[in-house]
């Protein structure tokens, strides 16, 4: 009787081992397949960016160049004015990110912790902001900044309205007023997160005599680090990649590298007389790698905090 039981147990163990193995195998296959779909083209781009002219036309060459060259990178760096452009773009997106994190966390905190009249309606407006795409309202915003005249102040001091287009100022104004790139989403994330924090934290701070602002900056924001990291990375990455706003506000490609890269191939074929599209495409590939690189480095450095952060960040209520 006892022996049978042991045998039965062993059988079950073996079955569950096989099940686990099959599941792992299935997972491995699926993950490998999808990783290939994602990484394949990137590997292709990296490989191609080292191709020499001969390699590009040699049908025997697949991914591994026969005579690798750094020429593509040299010219792409020169024509992108890489170091200066990348530096300015990073400065631009990091400063916007800082403003965005500050404003959106404040607004999210206000919605999460304070009761005021019309709160439900106003929060519905935040949701509306997420849902309504920017494209619906791009024209009025374009017009607003083309003739920028808040309350008639510009006309009062300089005699005419100011044209803020082709400078990054509109972007800063919109972000500082909580209407920047996907601000609605970030407000939502912060709101969810602050709602999940225990009320006792603030009560203790209040009893100890901390002011509202001290409580917010030194206590609540510190507790919200996972959310802050999540929003910061989202914000920076999207800002760095954004071409919609920079196109709309005619921001110079010299401070928005993702806009500059779109014309790189054209620039190189015009200026350097690389008229063969197959060859000029190789320069574009090198440019793409250069553009991805800074953001990739930031992401790899922060990705551990990021993915752990998202899990605790209040995207999930």
């Amino acid at each position, binding site marked *: 009787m006892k022996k049978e039981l042991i045998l039965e147990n062993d059988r079950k163990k073996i079955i569950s081992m096989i099940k686990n193995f099959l599941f792992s195998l299935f997972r491995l296959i699926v993950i490998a397949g999808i990783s290939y779909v994602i*990484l394949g083209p990137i590997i292709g781009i990296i490989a191609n960016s080292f191709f020499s002219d001969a390699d590009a036309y040699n049908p025997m060459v697949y991914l591994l160049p026969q005579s690798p060259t750094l020429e593509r990178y040299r010219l792409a760096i020169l024509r992108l004015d890489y170091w200066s452009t990348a530096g300015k773009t990073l400065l631009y997106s990091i400063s916007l990110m800082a403003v965005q994190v500050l*404003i959106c966390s404040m607004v999210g905190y*206000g919605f999460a912790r304070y009761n005021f009249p019309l709160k439900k309606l106003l929060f519905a*407006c935040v949701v509306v902001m997420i849902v309504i795409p920017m494209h619906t309202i791009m024209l009025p*915003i374009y017009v607003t900044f083309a003739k920028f005249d808040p309350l008639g102040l510009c006309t009062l001091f300089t005699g005419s309205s100011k044209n803020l287009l082709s400078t990054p100022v509109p972007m800063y104004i919109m972000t500082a007023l909580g209407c920047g790139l996907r601000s609605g989403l970030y407000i939502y994330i912060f709101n969810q997160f602050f709602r999940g924090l225990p009320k006792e934290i603030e009560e203790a701070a209040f009893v100890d005599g901390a002011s509202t602002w001290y409580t917010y900056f030194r206590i609540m924001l510190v507790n919200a680090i996972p959310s802050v990291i999540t929003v910061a990375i989202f914000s920076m990455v999207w800002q760095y990649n*954004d071409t919609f706003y920079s196109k709309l506000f005619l921001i110079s490609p010299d401070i928005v590298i993702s806009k500059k890269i779109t014309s790189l191939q054209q620039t190189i074929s015009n200026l350097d007389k690389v008229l063969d599209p197959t060859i000029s495409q190789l320069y574009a590939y090198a440019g793409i790698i250069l553009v991805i690189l800074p953001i990739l480095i930031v992401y790899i450095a922060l990705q551990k905090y990021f993915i752990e952060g998202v899990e605790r960040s209040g995207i999930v209520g």
Partner: protein
Amino acid sequence: MKKKKMSLTTKRSITGYVFILPWLAGFLIFYLRSLIMTANFSLSEITVAVGGGYDSKFVGLQNYLYAFRAHGSFKQVLTTSVGNMLIDVPLITFFSLLMAMLLNKKFKGRTLVRAIFFLPVIMNSAAITAAIDMSRQMLAGGLSASSAEMAGAASGVNVMYYVEMFSSLGLPSGVLDYIVAAVARINDIISASGVQIIIFIAALQSIPGSMYEVAKIEGATAYETFWKVTFPMVMPHIITNVVYTVVDNFANSEIVEMAYDTAFTEVNYGLSSAMSLVSTAIVCVILVIVCGFIQKRTFYYN
């Protein structure tokens, strides 16, 4: 003058307003006012005046009528965009749920895999996407390969052969079309589901482990556990994901591109506003219907 003493509630609601003040101002200036202006534009004929200003002349519904009756491709692009959305959204939602469940279990290299899955989100600028498409075609064999040939070349199977086989088996052609469309856009679906996967992983981790223990003790199979525990528990986040997917998909759709070109290439602001408003209205209706549908079936734990 004696200062009037405020009650704590009033004080706190004022502080609350102070916190949301920047956003409130921005919303009123940029969103509310702009929406009204867009509606106004769509009912007018806009002529750009010398010196950067514009003159508007009220023309009633003329822009809308033009878009629907006379414009060369508006209706077509609109239906394709909405159609693509209806194909993509369920696929992305279920794909990302499946992936989140695969990635939620502990295994070696999990962090790396999650990082890879999130890569498309990092690289979603227009130029990069274009280059990736080029590179993908190149990998599949030559720049001339179209996407259908590509799928065949990459996997070594003739897609059309299977399509014909299934249609001769009597599978309804609507279902078959959907499956073919889904397979043809597998790349788009994978690259559009980075954020959704992360949201679902977070949702899965917020399910208390005790619920799985109970299910196990009661003798539920893995299949039952999924439908009775996991699925109801992630249901609220399905709404979040569907909304995110719809909005994201719409922002990248052809119809938006078209409205943009109409405004800035053809300098027809009135028509462009009408197009934007029509497409936004359609998307909002879809969102309301879908959310209402899911909400009714959603189980809230708390």
